[in-house]
């Protein structure tokens, strides 16, 4: 698990941004990347891979590994580490490969 240092926790209460992750509300510090907010909220994993369905989480935090892909506001395959949190953002865990609509 990850946690916020006191200085960051203070900023969280002063400048809170609320997003929902799989339906649950997550309070984030304004300026956090979504990946940082997910770590601070206690989730190390954010998706299941398309190849084997194994759980994965953010790995590089700088936009090069593509392991932090999530669905944001209905758009799949968004990099959580490259996306700043925004009030009202709707985030979904990504499960496996996409299915072709019938």
């Amino acid at each position: 698990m990850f946690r916020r240092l006191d200085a960051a926790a203070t900023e969280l209460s002063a400048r809170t941004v609320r997003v929902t992750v799989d339906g649950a509300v997550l309070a984030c510090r304004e300026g956090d990347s979504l990946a940082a907010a997910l770590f601070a909220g206690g989730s190390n994993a954010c998706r299941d891979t398309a190849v084997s369905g194994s759980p994965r989480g953010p790995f590089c935090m700088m936009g090069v590994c593509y392991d932090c892909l999530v669905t944001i506001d209905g758009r799949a395959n968004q990099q959580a580490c490259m996306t700043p949190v925004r009030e009202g953002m709707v985030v979904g865990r990504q499960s496996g490969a996409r299915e072709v609509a019938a």
Partner: protein
Amino acid sequence: MNRSASNDTPISACDLLVVGAGPAGLAAATQAASQGIDTVLIDEQPAPGGQIYRAVNATPLRDRRILGEDYWHGLALLEPFARSGARHVAGAMVWAMNRLEEEGGFEVAYTADGQTRLLHTRHVILATGAQERPFPIPGWTLPGVITAGAAQILLKTAGVVPSGPTVLAGGGPLLYLLAWQYLNAGVRIDAILETTPPGRWRQALPHAWGFLRSAYLAKGLKLLRAVRAGVPIVSGVTAIEALGEEGALQQVRYSAQGRSHTVPAEQLLLHQGVVPNSNLSRAIGAEHAWSERQDCWEPVVDAWGASSVSGVTIAGDGAGIAGAMAAEHRGRLAALHAAMSLGKIDKARRDDEVRPHQRALARASRGREFFETLYRAPDTFRRPTGDTIVCRCEEVTAAQVRETARLGCQGPNQMKSFLRCGMGPCQGRFCGLTVTELIADEQGRHPRDVGYYRIRFPIKPVTLGEFATLPQTDASRDAVIRIRK
């Protein structure tokens, strides 16, 4: 962008494009703009600083003792850049760059907030920096295993740190810097698993003179002393395995001095040095060469950073790892050279103005050979075996790559056709070096002869929707309209 052209004219223009806002890019853009060059700096992050000075103007950790003075030096680059007149395009990803055959220069495609724009530039400075060297060990894809660089970004940008059992593993200055910053912040580290082989100090000794005269010595010793006092360090680690169930890291198993140990861990932070981030320099067609000292590819550049592609200069760690201080001086060298190429200054003035920067670069580069020799990533951690995943995106194992190489696969590009390794969204960034080395290993060849993936534009995934927002020009319409009414 102040003079954005997105609404009226579809394509904007500048004389110099700098890609990347780390120390090299910031220094290059500042220097170039002060030379009177119309300069644009495009960077992926919301704020300038690169990874080394990530969030330096926005970090929640205002107690300067936590991250240390070397980090706060980044502020000294931001203010002159802000005043320089260079245009800063933040949060934008450059994904294509093509030579304009008729008018010269390059057409550059970049996307920000889902909107794609085109920019024409006469000269390019690539300052794309470094990324973590792939460190393929069993279990490195488990959630809870992240790079030390990622952990440091979490610390700098969000003040987010591990809680619960935490292990750092690998080698290199960054591993100890992170440990030191964690200790400053009151974060507990349960162990550092040091993979530097015991004989390395002896090998590095011939390079000690440069190190002894460098700024690294005093800082390094202070830092090492603090970390040794605060964290149990296991030296001579020869194998590391991340173990877990239900998608979460639970334990780390390692071997040292011939014995195996297992420790509980919720976080494993990996580091085996950094390598140039070269997808853009490769896609644009610049020549790259294998570095024997650093076991990675580097673009071939001259003393100014000029690449084999005319009009493209490369500065900072993206042109070969030399660290943040060297990067800013290399950025200034590249800018002065670009100024001459663009006809803003003559050769005499370039050679005159560059002198203090060359001296500063020489000072900043002292001691690097010592580090490179000491912290060269051990073979066992660069050339994995068995079920260890090599390509994280397509989940291809070392055994698969090795077997395919034994069957006679000719190189990394054919390996893609066999196994799909390197064909996922990271575009080979976390498997390319490993695949080159495994083929070399199995076929008894040198990595330089094995080669690397052919990197093509777009260098990062772009959606069709983002393509569709490309500016419409007569030429682009003519290209798709076959029959005119």
